[in-house]
């Protein structure tokens, strides 16, 4: 019997008992649907985290001070050292040995109480150089960012993040030209940044930018900076840029041994891979749970196929009496179960994609569906048909024609 005949015969057999066929397929639909939806949502959240990190600048290196060791040999927290200076940042940009760096920005950061009229908030104050906007991809929605002149003249000007605007002036207000007080000092608001949609551990919208020099000299009374952001010329030269910056700072800080260095350099890709591995683990976990429902669906198929074999014992006996070989009977039942799971797989895929599309719209995640997960779903559902259909098919093929013909 030709395969095409077996397939069309299987289809007509399956349509005889629509209710049962539908219920058996439902198990696979739910299984495949949930795998597809969960994998897609997992990849979506992975993508969301990546986008957020990349919105900070994808070819970004961050230099932070190392831990300070006090006189008594007690090592303090990383970043507590005060040896990193604005001059270091300027040296990175001007050095002839550092060839793969496009731009550099120096920052100092602290949390301060901020007031405007009757409102007050506690937020992050970031002293920055004008290049910060370019290096860290900050856009201005109204007014302007900190300028070189602000930096040189130690102006008391501030650029607010949208969250701070909401906290101090109310939602949607335009505070440009107004005055705020940061730990007692008056600052004129000159600009508002575009929202970066910060969520979770670090809200990038809850921030106030002021000139670095103003922060150091007037507000905090220090000479050091808390970080240097380095923009490499491209993502491909991140490693070279990291080495060049590291070497220059070692020389400037008079260290021979890199392990003794009083600073650390992080690249954005390090953070990216850490975050990706976290969301990847969650995706794997969720898909694992969904895979269990797929196995349950497969057992459902096996159950139905066993019932079908019992029900059709006489028919199988007749087919064998008329000359059907074991292989033909096996094929017939395998094709039936594979059609069940295959159709279930395709429907499950459509439902899974639709569910993931709706959910990702609802919780504003980027919608991603990979060809590999579709291929996997179809492959898995077809193999479930073969794996769970195998035993019932063997039972059918091994029926003795006499016994089967006698069966009532």
């Amino acid at each position, binding site marked *: 019997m030709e395969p095409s*005949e077996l397939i069309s015969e299987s289809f007509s057999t399956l349509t005889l008992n629509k209710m049962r066929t539908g219920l058996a397929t439902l198990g696979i639909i739910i299984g495949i649907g949930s795998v597809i939806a969960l994998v897609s949502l997992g990849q979506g959240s992975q993508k969301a985290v990546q986008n957020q990190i990349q919105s900070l600048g994808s070819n970004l290196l961050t230099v932070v001070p190392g831990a300070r060791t006090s006189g008594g040999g007690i090592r303090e927290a990383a970043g507590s050292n005060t040896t990193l200076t604005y001059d270091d940042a300027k040296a990175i940009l001007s050095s002839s040995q550092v060839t793969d760096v496009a731009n550099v920005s120096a920052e100092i950061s602290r949390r301060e109480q901020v007031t405007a009229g009757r409102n007050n908030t506690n937020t992050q104050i970031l002293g920055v150089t004008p290049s910060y906007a370019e290096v860290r991809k900050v856009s201005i929605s109204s007014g302007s960012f900190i300028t070189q002149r602000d930096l040189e003249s130690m102006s008391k000007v501030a650029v607010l993040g949208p969250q701070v605007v909401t906290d101090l002036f109310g939602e949607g207000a335009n505070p440009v030209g107004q005055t705020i007080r940061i730990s007692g000092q008056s600052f004129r608001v000159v600009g508002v940044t575009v929202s970066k949609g910060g969520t979770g551990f670090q809200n990038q919208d809850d921030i106030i930018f002021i000139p670095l020099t103003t922060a150091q000299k007037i507000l905090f009374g220090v000479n050091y900076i808390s970080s240097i952001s380095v923009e490499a010329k491209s993502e491909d030269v991140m490693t070279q840029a990291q080495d060049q910056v590291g070497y220059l700072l070692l020389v400037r800080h008079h260290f021979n041994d890199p392990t003794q260095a009083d600073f650390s350099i992080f690249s954005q890709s390090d953070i990216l891979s850490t975050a990706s591995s976290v969301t990847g683990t969650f995706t794997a976990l969720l898909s694992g749970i969904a895979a269990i429902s797929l196995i349950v669906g497969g057992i459902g198929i096996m159950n139905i196929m066993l019932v079908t074999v019992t029900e059709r014992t006489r028919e199988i006996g007749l087919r064998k*009496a*008329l000359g059907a070989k074991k292989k033909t009977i096996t094929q017939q039942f395998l094709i039936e179960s594979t059609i069940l799971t295959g159709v279930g797989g395709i429907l499950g895929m459509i439902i899974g994609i639709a569910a993931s599309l709706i959910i990702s719209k609802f919780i504003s995640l980027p919608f991603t569906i990979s060809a590999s997960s579709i291929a996997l779903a179809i492959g898995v559902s077809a193999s479930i048909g073969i794996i769970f259909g195998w035993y019932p098919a063997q039972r059918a093929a091994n029926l003795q024609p006499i016994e089967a013909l006698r069966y009532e």
Partner: protein
Amino acid sequence: MIQVSHISKIYKNDSIETVALSDISFNVAGGEFIAIMGPSGSGKSTLMHIIGALDSPTHGSYILDGEDISKLNDDELADIRNRKIGFIFQAFNLLPRTTALKNVMLPMAYGGIPKEKRKEAAEKYLEMVGLADRMDYTSSQLSGGQQQRVAIARALTMEPKIILADEPTGNLASAQANEIMEIFRRLNKDGHTIVMITHEPDIAEFAKRIITLRDGRIESDRKNGKRKSVGYIRKVKK
């Protein structure tokens, strides 16, 4: 055509042995029409299974068309059944919800006959049994007699060496039984070899030779001189 020599069949169930057939020998030549008779439990069904290559004997040899088939495996037996034996069952055994035409085409599908030729042959045999106008009817739309005629057409499609009928009229009213027996007579006249199992003496009388079994042994094997003609069956059966 058929050489059955010293065949016995012993069923073993736990440690109890049941002898269904013991030392059965007979030959069937081409063109014969044989009825195998006997009360229930006489072993006629077991014998029919062995002749039909549905089962193997415990001892003895069975040669069908020059081929010893007592030692073949399942798939080889399936092939023998397909090519050399045309089955007709008491319960018709047509595929449910399938048209007469498709039912008749089924053995040819298993026999690897090209698709185009199957329909042609199936139509020819359905016409032969007088169902030219019922080809697209499904089994449930046909009467018992019509279903059995479809089964006869199905048995003929592979041009088998023997036609093996197991109580072919057992489920039919006498008028329809008559029709079926008339077809058998005609087939036999055209040269077909027919082996028919029955427990009804009336039906057995249509055959040229009657073998009677009792307790797994051949009780008698005689020529049937006075064959009954069509219309012989008069009494209405249950």
